């Protein structure tokens, strides 16, 4: 059952990602991104991370994608124009990307037995329940990164104001 779910939604996620790159109209790209996000949410859920799955749906598919679609609509962006791209991208980028992909798959495939042997017990077995575990991490162990993210967002907002403002 889990394997079937993984195969279906894993393939759906990859297909959505490829479609995202191939589509010419920004709205179509944005919508295929929704497919990717939703499939990822199902994958998280099948791994037993219900909270993460819910957060994924609410934050990414809900908030962020709505924002994307709004921006695309407001800008009234038409179909993108294709350029030939730089030659370096084809000569160095494509082999490079293939090499990294092969390396990663090689590492993951050869080490597939070792996965699960890593000592993740404190993260997996002691789980009273998902929410309790997450709040333990979020509000105790990683309290500072969680709080400092607010400065990060503040900087981003400030940057948006600076870039959007008209020079007088």
């Amino acid at each position, binding site marked *: 059952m889990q394997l079937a779910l993984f195969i279906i939604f894993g393939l759906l996620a990859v297909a959505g990602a490829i479609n995202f790159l191939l589509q010419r109209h920004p709205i179509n790209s944005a919508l295929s991104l929704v497919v990717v996000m939703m499939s990822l949410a199902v994958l998280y859920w099948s791994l037993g991370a219900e909270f993460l799955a819910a957060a994924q749906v609410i934050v990414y598919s809900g908030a962020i994608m709505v924002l994307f679609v709004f921006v695309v609509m407001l800008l009234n962006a038409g179909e993108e124009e294709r350029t030939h791209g730089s030659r370096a991208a084809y000569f160095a980028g494509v082999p490079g990307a293939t090499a990294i992909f092969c390396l990663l798959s090689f590492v993951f495939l050869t080490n597939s037995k*070792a996965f699960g042997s890593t000592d993740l017990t404190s993260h997996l077995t002691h789980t009273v329940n998902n929410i309790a575990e997450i709040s333990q991490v979020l509000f*105790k162990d990683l309290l*500072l990164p969680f709080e400092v993210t607010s400065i*990060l967002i503040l900087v981003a907002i400030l940057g948006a104001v*600076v*870039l959007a403002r008209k020079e007088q």
Partner: protein
Amino acid sequence: MSPNVLTLLPEIILTLTGVIIMLAEPLLPATSSRKPLGWLAILGTLAAGLASWYQTGFGTMHSFFGTIQVDSFSIFFHLLIAAIVLVTLLSSLDYFEGHATHAGEYFALTLFGATGMMLMTCSVELLMVFIGLEISSISTYIMAGFRKGQASATEASIKYFLLGSFATAFFLYGIALAFGSTGSTRIDSISLGLTTTATPTLALLSLGLIIIGIGFKVSAAPFHVWTPDVYQGAPAPVVGLMSTAPKAAAFAVLLRILFSGYPSYEPRWAALIWVLAVLSMTVGNLGALMQRDVKRMLAYSSIAHAGYLLVAYTAFPADGIASACFYTAAYAAMNVGAFTAITQIAGYQERARTIDDYTALALKRPVLAAVLGFFLLSLIGIPFTGGFFGKFYVFSAALHAGRVWLAVIGLLNSGIACFYYLRLLAALYSRPVTENDRVDAHTTVTVPAAIALTLTAVATLLLGIAPNRILGIAQHSADVTVHPNPAQPGADATTTSASR
């Protein structure tokens, strides 16, 4: 004072000052000068520097459940970053006068960026490092495009943003794999996990991805492609900041990750760093030879200097850290100084761009030409300048570690580097062939900028004449990092319980 507040005192001061400036900016009338905000930012930076100095009396401190570790290593980089930001603020105080209406946001972004960089150097939790890295990166992306309406500035900002986010993704993937292989994102637990349970190939992959991510940030070859375009398009004072402070922070992070997170993998990462160092030195110096634009030339020179710095990393364990810390300080002093001088020569519009535009500068503005010349000599590595001792310590550390070839390649590269620095230096003092109208002889250097130039020049000179003091501090911080007091759960519990 609670330990949580005490350990983050410099960051808290900087953030508060930044927020005050940000809130005050829209209250000021659009036509009024933004200088008071600049002075406020300078005061905040000074206070943050003093706060870091104050922390030295407390030894190694942990806080926030082991996320933050304040030791002499982090304080060294805190002071360095505060000094760089101080000089940048002084040199850009008059830079935006009459040109940009939003200079207040520039000062706020500088302070927020500094907060991010400082957080990077004092955190021992990779997720915290990542957040700090993002704060510092996002503020520099925006600052790179601050001269709006100029195509090159926009190009710089967008290029920096796209490639920078790409690099951050690598770094984040590295953290994820480190977690996957060791079960922790804490540097000391990673080091522990690597010797016991970790999957070697996966750990190696995580190490590689982290090095790639940091390599982008410090513009080490082959991850340097963004550097020349960004440095050429960004405002000169911003380039002075972003070629030194974020790099110092990233180098500090790399030191911590490699030396106290992955010490058991030393032979493997040392080989990787060896390749990066050789490539950066060679690509940087050969690239700089081809440039006519002064800022592009200095961009390639900064790639080469990242290479020299990486040489120190191959000298594991103790010599490496001390010489790397010293080199970072020396490089920061001379590079910020050089860009401060360029800011004063070229002005806001940056009409003087190429080496030809700098011809006979000594006739028009003799003091500025002399100061710029001094920084160029230091960048070459002439004795009695900080650059000399920086290179000396780095290469001698490499020799002690038995990396003779690396030291030889580094010395050859230093020889190549003489050509392009001396070409600019010669241009400064040569006779004008045609009338050079790109440099205005009548503008004067303002008092804050003069202070900034004096500070950097004195720092460069002091590092070249009496390097022992800084080297002593660097050595001390090396001892802390190589023999870290691991965050004992018990000790950490007491600090946290006391804070409640």
